[in-house]
């Protein structure tokens, strides 16, 4: 059981990365982004492309770091893929959502447009890579470390937790200390007031998409390292992402972090008595319970 909780924290940290991006987009732009799961997929596959095509062509060696299952190629591909998916998110906003904003379309049209974008991203991945599961390094033995209480954990997973911790701390300081971060929080609080104070909301929107896309990409790559890549992987994350976002109160980054960990742990612990394929359903049930008991989430005040 302790082992399942540890694995749940690993999975939950991936969900948190996605959910933090989703909650920022949701809170700041008031936009339920149904393409967010597919940002995870896009990140995972762009890292695959970087590591196996671009960096091997440049001639970066394929050796691994110590007992980790990846080396320099992945270390370089990781930030580049985050930037790439951040750009994808910004481009989607420019090409699709900004046009809808200018026409004053209702919120549901945005959601529908993002659903269309989700399918477009997924179909491109299907076309380029096919429908099979892929690995960054196929056929690799991945030995686990033995911790007390009989917990087995792979070195990769420890590093993953450190990466997530680093990204979240960075984002925390960005939102708290920088001017852009403060402007983003102000916009999330009250968009009209932010506009009156001279905040350029289009710039805020661009930054929000960039950060959201980059974090989702990081989550996707980490999942790819931990488990495998599949064009549907992000879609399976969509319900957990929304569940984590709603649980942690929409717009609240720390809530999304806690929500993500909670959902991740619940999903992994459920495998003790349910088939693992039911993981999305577990997240769904939790979400329905939150909607019934406390739809504003754990950090929400009573309705504004």
């Amino acid at each position, binding site marked *: 059981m302790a082992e399942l909780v540890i694995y749940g924290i690993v999975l939950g940290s991936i969900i948190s990365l996605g959910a933090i991006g989703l909650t920022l987009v949701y809170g700041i732009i008031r936009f339920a982004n149904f393409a967010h799961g597919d940002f995870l997929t896009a990140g995972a596959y762009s890292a695959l492309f970087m590591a196996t095509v671009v960096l091997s062509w440049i001639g970066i060696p394929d050796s691994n770091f110590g007992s980790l299952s990846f080396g320099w190629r992945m270390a370089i591909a990781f930030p580049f893929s985050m930037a790439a998916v951040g750009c994808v998110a910004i481009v989607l906003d420019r090409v699709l959502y900004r046009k809808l904003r200018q026409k004053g379309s209702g919120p549901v049209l945005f959601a*529908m*447009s993002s659903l269309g974008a989700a399918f*477009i991203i997924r179909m491109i991945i299907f076309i380029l890579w096919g429908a099979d599961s892929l690995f960054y390094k196929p056929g690799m033995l991945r030995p686990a470390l033995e911790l007390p209480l009989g917990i087995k954990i792979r070195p990769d997973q420890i590093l993953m937790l450190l990466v997530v911790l680093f990204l979240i701390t960075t984002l925390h300081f960005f939102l708290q200390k920088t001017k852009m971060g403060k402007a983003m929080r102000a916009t999330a609080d009250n968009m009209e007031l932010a506009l009156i104070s001279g905040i350029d909301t289009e710039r805020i929107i661009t930054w929000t998409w960039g950060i959201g896309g980059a974090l989702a990409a990081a989550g996707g790559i980490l999942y790819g390292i931990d488990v495998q890549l599949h064009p549907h992987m992000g879609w399976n994350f969509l319900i957990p992402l929304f569940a984590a976002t709603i649980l942690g109160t929409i717009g609240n980054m720390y809530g999304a972090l806690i929500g993500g960990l909670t959902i991740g742990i619940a999903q992994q612990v459920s495998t003790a008595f349910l088939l693992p394929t039911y993981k999305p359903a577990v997240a769904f049930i939790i979400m329905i319970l939150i909607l019934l008991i406390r739809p504003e989430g754990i950090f929400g005040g009573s309705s504004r």
Partner: protein
Amino acid sequence: MEIWGIIAYLVSFAIMAGIYAVFCLGLNIQWGYTGLFNIGIAGFFCIGAYASAMITTPKPTGLYAHYVRQIFGLNLPFIIGLLGAAVICGIVAFLIGIPTLRLGEDYLAISTIGIAETFRLIFNNEHWLANGPRGLMGLPQPFQDLVDPKHYNYIYLIIILIIVVIVYLSIEKAIRSPWGRVLRAIREDEVSAAMSGKDIFHFKMQSLIFGAMIMGIGGALYAHYTKAISPDVFTPLYGTFIIWVMLMAGGSGNNKGAVLGAYVIWLIWIGTKFMTDLLPYTLKARAPYIRFLLIGILLEIILIYRPRGLLGEEKKVSKLVD
């Protein structure tokens, strides 16, 4: 003989598009008239198809029971299957409406995705329920003894057309009643509808259930057309996404548009198949993805440049106002 081949092809085209027209009409009640954002149509599709399949087939016995497991089989007529599918979908819609309809529209959207995925997982993994991933086969077709199976599609086309007409007329009737006007009032402005003394939650719930029941009928019609169903049919692409594109293309808030959209988009969908047939052999396996990519791009173009669709909404729905 060539001409009969083409006619048979057109008939099968008209049947599939007619089934999708039923889904579009169901979605039109929810989205077109009430503004309910249901993106889990595949869930109701799946439930309707399985419900009707299990109502109309006998429970497997003897040796056959070793190969096909299903929790019940009632061996009742087709029409009971349709009604049963509608009722069960209505109940599921009621249950999903309770936690979500008081909240913003996004909550219903994500919950309907959840219900669609959950039911697909259940039908895939629970072998005792409806034979797991292998699904159910040999579903009965109404009046199947009347003609040679080769020509059966003509009869089924007539059945589909009759049902489309019945569904169309009943929605038109409902939407032109005071009840229908309340739905549109809710879609336009929830607060002022509530201030006129309308119970928003109950009207939304009725709309959600009504639409879901029609989707259940659509699922049943699909099951008895293909005679074989398995959980992998009810994916978000075939079961939800394409139906949304159809309704948006035809014109949400317009029942004629819903039917037209189903036929037009299904024609485009079939047309893209001829296009991808021209692709080099190595790309053939990826052809369905290319086709869906085109449909996705089409949706984005519609949303930006013509959100009202081909026909747009009828502004007047009462014959008393002119």
